[in-house]
């Protein structure tokens, strides 16, 4: 009776108990101390793991905030609201954040940019750019194969007519698209900066004309027009200083190539128009 029924039960229970005690001791002596504030901070974050803060996902960012290595205001999608929520958890005061937005510095659609060849390889900007730096004559423009679309966690950027366009309402300014773009054509600008130069071409004017019907030729008309000294032609490309720019829009009117765009043309634009203009910008 004992040997047939009770002993095997005792053996299994004994082995289980020994294993349990061993695990308990291990858990006690090798415990990883998890700061409970990490959980709370993590709960404040959006959880998209976009990487806009520069850390490997929201969990990593939360851990770095609590350890004091990361600023509270590094989460572009969360903005001021999330920064203040984290500040409440940690008992710190947080100021206002400048909302950012992705801007595609190219305004050339498929027809406007000159394509000297037909690219029939794998669809992707990085793949296309490996071959002669892309299938466009312009080495600076948007290739339009949508690597940025795949990178976007918020469905805020889309390729329309061979040109990436940003939906300003959905864009959080996390910069994921800007990182994957092989031509570095997407920049992260302050949301309030309404006037932007939608071109990245630093070729000389005559060369630019041959490659694209809507590229910055460095004519300096905008520079002469600007009353605030905010737009400068540097290396054959107009560049706006957002600290000085008042978004008056006078440079937009004088640009012969129509590469300077006012994102909020005509006060409040409709969502569709807004999106198209913002994307070109």
């Amino acid at each position, binding site marked *: 009776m004992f040997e047939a029924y009770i002993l095997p039960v005792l053996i299994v229970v004994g082995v289980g108990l020994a*294993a349990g005690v*061993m695990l308990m001791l291990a858990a006690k002596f090798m415990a990883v101390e998890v700061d409970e504030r990490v959980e709370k901070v993590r709960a404040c974050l959006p959880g998209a793991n976009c990487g806009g803060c520069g850390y490997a996902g929201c969990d990593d960012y939360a851990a770095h905030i609590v350890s004091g290595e990361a600023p509270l205001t590094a989460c572009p999608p969360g903005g001021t609201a999330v920064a203040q929520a984290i500040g409440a958890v940690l008992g710190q005061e947080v100021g206002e954040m400048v909302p950012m937005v992705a801007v595609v510095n190219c305004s050339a659609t498929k027809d406007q940019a000159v394509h000297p060849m037909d690219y029939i390889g794998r669809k992707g900007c990085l793949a296309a750019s490996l071959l002669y730096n892309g299938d466009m004559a312009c080495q600076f423009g948007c290739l339009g194969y949508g690597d940025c679309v795949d990178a976007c966690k918020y469905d805020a950027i889309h390729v329309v007519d061979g040109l990436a366009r940003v939906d300003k309402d959905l864009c959080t300014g996390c910069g994921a698209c800007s990182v994957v773009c092989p031509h570095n054509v997407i920049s992260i600008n302050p949301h309030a900066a309404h006037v932007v130069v939608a071109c990245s071409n630093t070729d000389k004017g005559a060369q630019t004309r041959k490659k694209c019907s809507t590229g910055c030729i460095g004519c300096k008309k905008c520079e002469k027009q600007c009353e605030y000294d905010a737009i400068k032609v540097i290396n054959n490309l107009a560049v706006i200083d957002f600290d000085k720019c008042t978004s008056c829009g006078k440079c937009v009117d004088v640009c012969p190539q129509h590469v300077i765009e006012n994102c909020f043309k005509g006060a409040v634009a409709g969502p569709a128009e807004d999106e198209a203009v913002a994307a070109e910008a």
Partner: protein
Amino acid sequence: MNNTVFFLALLMETILVSNVVLAQFLGICPFLGVSRKLDSAIGMGVAVIFVLLLATAVTWPIYTYLLYPKFAYLQTLVFILVIAALVQLVEIFLARFVPALYKSLGIYLPLITTNCAVLGVTINCIDFEYNFVTSLVYAFGIGVGFLLAMVLFAGVRSRIDESGIPQSFRGMPITLIAASIVSMAFMGFSGIATGIFGISI
């Protein structure tokens, strides 16, 4: 001397000829799950070697001195219990000392518990009537074989990711086909250990 030759033959047999994944088809889950990146594949392989050695070192005495001969039928139950506890131990250990590896292994770390390679090896050691040292060598060889298969397949998969696969084969189908081709390649090793060392395992 004779022992050394036997151990060498046993290692070659377990690593190449009867490779745990590619010839015995044990432990397919982590083989397919963690072989996406070379780093985590190596980490998983080393973790499995460690668990295999530990599990064999614990289960062999338990079977030989506690269960055999009257309670041999408790073998599977007790082995699974012990292996589960050991994997938990490894998990606690990694979380404490190698957090990066702990993160990259993710869910596949607790899944070593249900990695049939571990249970398979411990039961094989009993079935083949190996002594303690031979069992450990066998477990080590199987673990290295697993690591080899993981590393090889991580390389194969990085090539798969970069090639133009027809739509319907993308993802798991082409991975399984590639795994079967690698497995067939390993059939070329059959009999090599016996041929070189002149003893049958």
